[in-house]
């Protein structure tokens, strides 16, 4: 069968205009920032007020200024909120956060509220590690996966606050930070027939493990290799700082702003602890209606404009950094419920921004005794992928056209689960794929259309040329989760 790709542009166009009714344009960066700032301050004030009400003198000098709304700390969210357009979009972003959070909590997928606990409970050591941030936990079907790094475990044991986890003064810590690992357990194993899956973390339930070493990561904005790029931000921040200081000075002299600050702190004092966050958000929501003086308006507009410019410049720097190189080594171990245990070594490299080029080479070995009639080397693989994004990110979203090729060589026939061989499966498989990923406006959902060509499939060697067209649907859960840790 020859693949027909003629219909793809038409189909892509149809899918692109099939935008859900009411879908809204993406929220601009300054508004998303303001939403984060208001939500963060509301939570911080609530936490510090709880501390103050319990023991009025318990705050450290560095915390006192943050326990209330005041100009020294809040002048920036105040001037951004005074711009009606930014404020409205920020409130929309806050509402989206609230809705997404409710959905997330109800799904039972968050740590500590999963069905895993009700099915016998996570073994205590791992549960403590997850609760203290030393490990993260994912559940997929009956498989539980823990991920972490040696550094995060050591830091969590030392009860280091989360925000200090990336301190890299110690060269040994810097090297350790390049390592990460994961361990997966199949909770359906090692049980009597018909029993509910129960997590015991025994060796019998161990299904896979990985160790990752990030040799080069110039895509990390915090990497020392990118320090010189960040120096380019100075002109924009200098101009912003001067404009922000003018806004700060005008606020001190503007009665309407002083009254808003006083009124907000009165409302905070009068509120119950569990109401404080809502009170702070509601007060910021009121700001666009506050009648500020003409001089304050000029200063506010100037500061907001410079803020937008600085944010744009930062985004440009991040795009440049995203083009940096990355080389990662993965070591994997797989122990299926039936069939031979295997291990694999993989090297992945990527570079590029407008065009992203990714390549990897990998080899898989049988661990222990190789199945009868098979060599210990199961296969070697190499693949290259080129991603070409196009389209307006502020409009429908970015399309991605992908070209990929993969070659896999198996020196022996494939081993089935029960240890028998699939005859005639050894040899070399070459595979090529063209894929168009179509965004859905206003949604993290994406629709991939792909055409794949192969000299054979692994189990159908008699077909000399094999072609397959596929239409799929994917949902980027990260896009939703990133609203909590974007």
């Amino acid at each position, binding site marked *: 069968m020859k693949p027909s790709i003629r219909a793809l542009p038409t189909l892509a166009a149809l899918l692109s205009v099939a935008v859900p009714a009411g879908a809204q344009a993406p929220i601009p*960066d300054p508004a*998303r*920032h303001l*939403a*984060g*700032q208001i*939500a*963060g*301050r509301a939570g911080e004030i609530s936490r510090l007020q709880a501390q103050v009400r319990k023991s009025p*003198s318990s*705050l450290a*000098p*560095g915390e*006192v*200024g943050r326990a209330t709304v005041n*100009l*020294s*700390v809040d*002048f*920036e969210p105040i001037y951004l909120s005074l711009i009606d357009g930014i404020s409205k979009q920020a409130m929309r*972003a806050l509402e989206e956060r609230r809705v997404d959070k409710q959905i997330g909590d109800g799904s039972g997928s968050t740590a500590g509220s999963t069905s895993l606990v009700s099915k016998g409970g996570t073994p205590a050591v791992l549960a403590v590690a997850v609760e203290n941030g030393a490990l993260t936990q994912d559940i997929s079907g009956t498989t539980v996966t823990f991920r972490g790094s040696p550094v995060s475990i050591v830091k969590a044991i030392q009860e280091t606050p*989360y*925000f*200090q*986890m*990336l*301190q890299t003064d110690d060269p040994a810590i810097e090297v350790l930070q390049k390592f990460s690992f994961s361990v997966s357990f199949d909770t359906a194993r090692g049980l009597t027939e018909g029993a509910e899956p129960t997590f015991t973390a025994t060796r019998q339930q161990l299904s896979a493990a990985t160790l990752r070493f990030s040799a080069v990561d110039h895509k*990390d*904005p*915090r990497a020392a290799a*990118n320090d010189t790029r*960040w120096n380019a*931000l*100075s002109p924009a*921040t*200098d101009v*912003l*700082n*001067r404009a*922000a*200081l003018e806004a*700060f*000075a005008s606020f001190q002299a503007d009665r309407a702003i002083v009254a808003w600050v006083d009124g907000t702190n009165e409302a905070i004092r009068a509120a119950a602890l569990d109401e404080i966050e809502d009170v702070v958000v509601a007060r910021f929501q009121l700001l666009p209606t506050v009648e500020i003086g003409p001089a304050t308006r000029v200063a506010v507009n100037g500061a907001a404009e410079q803020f937008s410019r*600085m*944010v744009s410049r*930062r985004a440009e720097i991040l795009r440049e950094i995203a083009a940096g190189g990355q080389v990662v080594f993965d070591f994997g171990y797989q122990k299926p419920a039936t069939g031979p245990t295997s291990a694999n070594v993989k090297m992945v490299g990527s570079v590029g921004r407008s065009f992203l080029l990714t390549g990897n080479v990998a080899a898989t070995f049988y661990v222990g005794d190789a199945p009868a009639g098979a060599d210990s080397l199961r296969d070697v693989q190499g693949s290259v992928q080129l991603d070409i994004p196009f389209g307006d990110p502020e409009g429908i979203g970015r399309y991605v056209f992908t070209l990929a090729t993969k070659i896999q060589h198996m020196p022996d026939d494939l081993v089935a689960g029960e240890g028998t061989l699939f005859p005639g499966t050894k040899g070399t498989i070459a595979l090529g794929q063209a894929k168009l990923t179509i965004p859905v406006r206003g949604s993290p959902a994406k629709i991939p259309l792909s055409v794949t060509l192969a000299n054979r499939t692994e189990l159908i060697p008699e077909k000399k040329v094999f072609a397959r067209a596929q239409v799929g649907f994917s949902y980027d859960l990260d896009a939703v989760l*990133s*609203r*909590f*840790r*974007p």
Partner: protein
Amino acid sequence: MRINNNNSLDLAAKKGESLTLSLQDGDAVVSFSGLANGSLTKGTPHQFTVPTTGTDLPLLVRATFKAASGGFAAVRVSDNNGTVAPFTFTQFPGTVTNAVVFLIDIE
């Protein structure tokens, strides 16, 4: 230098007193403006002199975060007698930057 109301952002200092603004730790880009102007890196503190006139002089300090979350910067204003006014910026999820103003009154 004196810290008023136990609030490290509310300071008083003598005319001509030498103060130091420094970045103790962090992974953010830190800049400052007002009483002094420039940018800060770990291990290179910035010294400035308190003017002889004025009230509540502002020193704006800004931390611009490099990644989407988890950024922080611990800064402080200190004098030669060991008085320290600290402030730690912690990045709220989704935020790009954060700025505060140290107000320094002249005694």
